[in-house]
């Protein structure tokens, strides 16, 4: 698309673009240099500050934090997905008595900040921080999964369900055998994108004092001295971002593969659903 927006650059435009590129790159480099200089003035780059990474226990603590992050995310994802499926089936149930209350509950769950739910479970039910984090993530993400799958089912041609009912399947069987498999496949990119959100939201555990990666940073900085805060934070943030980028890449790869398979078909998710799942 981007190439459609402007003409194929001629010699003059190429020169202007090259100059603009160089100026832009210099500006960005200048900004980076300024940041590095400011940090250097604070003594961030002194070797002794980074020497803590030669200590095994620092890595062990970071590893523990990462382990807590990943285990909470994994457990939450494993519970949230089936629960989301169930909520989705209830949400599109033929009986209004089930459908309408479900709709209200899902709106409620989706409209609340995840961290508030975590705090609610932590204080309201007096659970451990781990359970509060997992339960908060499960409730919110199950509601989002339910909405994504529902959007997937609604994007199917109506004939699918009609055909299922016509050959004598019950409503439930038609959902399970005909509609859900297609809907989940269609919504795979959104579902994986939501997994990234779930992984990112694990960091909210920091606020309810769950010992995840960021809390490990805080604990180490308190224990070793605040001069180590920046190096440890830097490494932890890099770990977090690297993991998230890898999972996001996986989502993009799945989307590409899906759209290749359904060549000519519309394997792309509804754009608004993708966006709703995004932040």
């Amino acid at each position: 698309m981007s190439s459609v927006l402007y003409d194929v650059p001629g010699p003059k435009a190429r020169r202007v673009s090259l100059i603009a590129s160089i100026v832009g790159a210099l500006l960005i480099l200048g900004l980076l240099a300024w940041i590095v200089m400011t940090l250097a003035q604070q003594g961030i780059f002194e070797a002794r500050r980074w020497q803590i990474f030669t200590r095994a226990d620092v890595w062990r603590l970071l590893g523990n934090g990462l382990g807590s992050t990943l285990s909470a995310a994994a457990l939450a994802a494993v519970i949230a997905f089936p629960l989301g499926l169930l909520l989705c089936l209830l949400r599109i149930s033929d009986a209004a008595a089930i459908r309408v209350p479900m709709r209200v509950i899902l709106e409620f769950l989706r409209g609340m900040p995840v961290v508030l739910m975590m705090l609610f479970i932590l204080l309201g039910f007096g659970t451990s921080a781990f359970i509060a984090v997992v339960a908060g993530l499960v409730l919110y993400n199950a509601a989002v999964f339910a909405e994504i799958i529902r959007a997937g089912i609604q994007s199917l041609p109506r004939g699918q369900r009609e055909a299922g009912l016509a050959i004598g399947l019950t409503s439930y069987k038609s959902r399970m055998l005909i509609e859900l498999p297609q809907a989940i496949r269609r919504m795979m990119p959104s579902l994986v994108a939501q997994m990234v959100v779930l992984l990112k939201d694990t960091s909210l555990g920091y606020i309810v004092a769950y010992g995840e990666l960021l809390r490990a940073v805080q604990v180490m900085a308190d224990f070793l001295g605040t001069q180590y805060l920046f190096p440890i934070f830097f490494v932890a943030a890099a770990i977090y971002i690297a993991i998230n980028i890898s999972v996001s890449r996986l989502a993009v790869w799945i989307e590409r593969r899906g759209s290749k398979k359904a060549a000519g078909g519309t394997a792309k998710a509804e754009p608004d659903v993708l966006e709703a799942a995004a932040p």
Partner: protein
Amino acid sequence: MDVIIENLPLYWNGFLRTLFLSAVSGIFALILGTLLAAARVSPVAALRGFSTVYVEVLRNTPLTIAFFFAAVVLPRIGVKFEQFEIAAIIALSTYTAAFIAEAVRSGVNSVPVGQAEAARSIGMKFGQVLSLIILPQALRTVIPPLINILIALVKNSSVAGAFFVLELFGYGRQMANANGDAVIAVLLGTAFFYLLLTVPLGILANTVERKVAIAR
């Protein structure tokens, strides 16, 4: 229930602070995000590269990390804030801008190729094509996803409560600690005020989506 009524002024303060944080960060994020999206499709390679890296990194940064950086790490390395609201606004708007940039870019991609070709064929330059032809159409199609991003922003502003800003979540936590016997009521009250913002926005998104849907 009494707890909620007694603390209504606190809830109201928190609600206004949340509204303020969301509105200011939302405006900054919309401006920054649109600029990033424009940079992403521009002919200048350096701008494209910068925008791509920015969006990729910020989108994959947990919000708590962004807040921790703005509110804890920045002051330690010499950037002092008078108020922590500023740190919260920086974290929220830089984070949200990445999502807005992605949404606007997908909107730009949804404008039919013929529109840009027609604009170029009558002699418009890149800036004109983008600002007069493409963006007005693109923004229109991305209004519903943008509202969804703003809903997420309102909910995300709750993280500020954990970083020294007294907004709805911050007050909620404070009140929950002060009223140990009525935690559930206090937090349900907090939830209610969040829903007061997010549910109408959600309804608005749905309505607008139906209204602006362009038949192509």
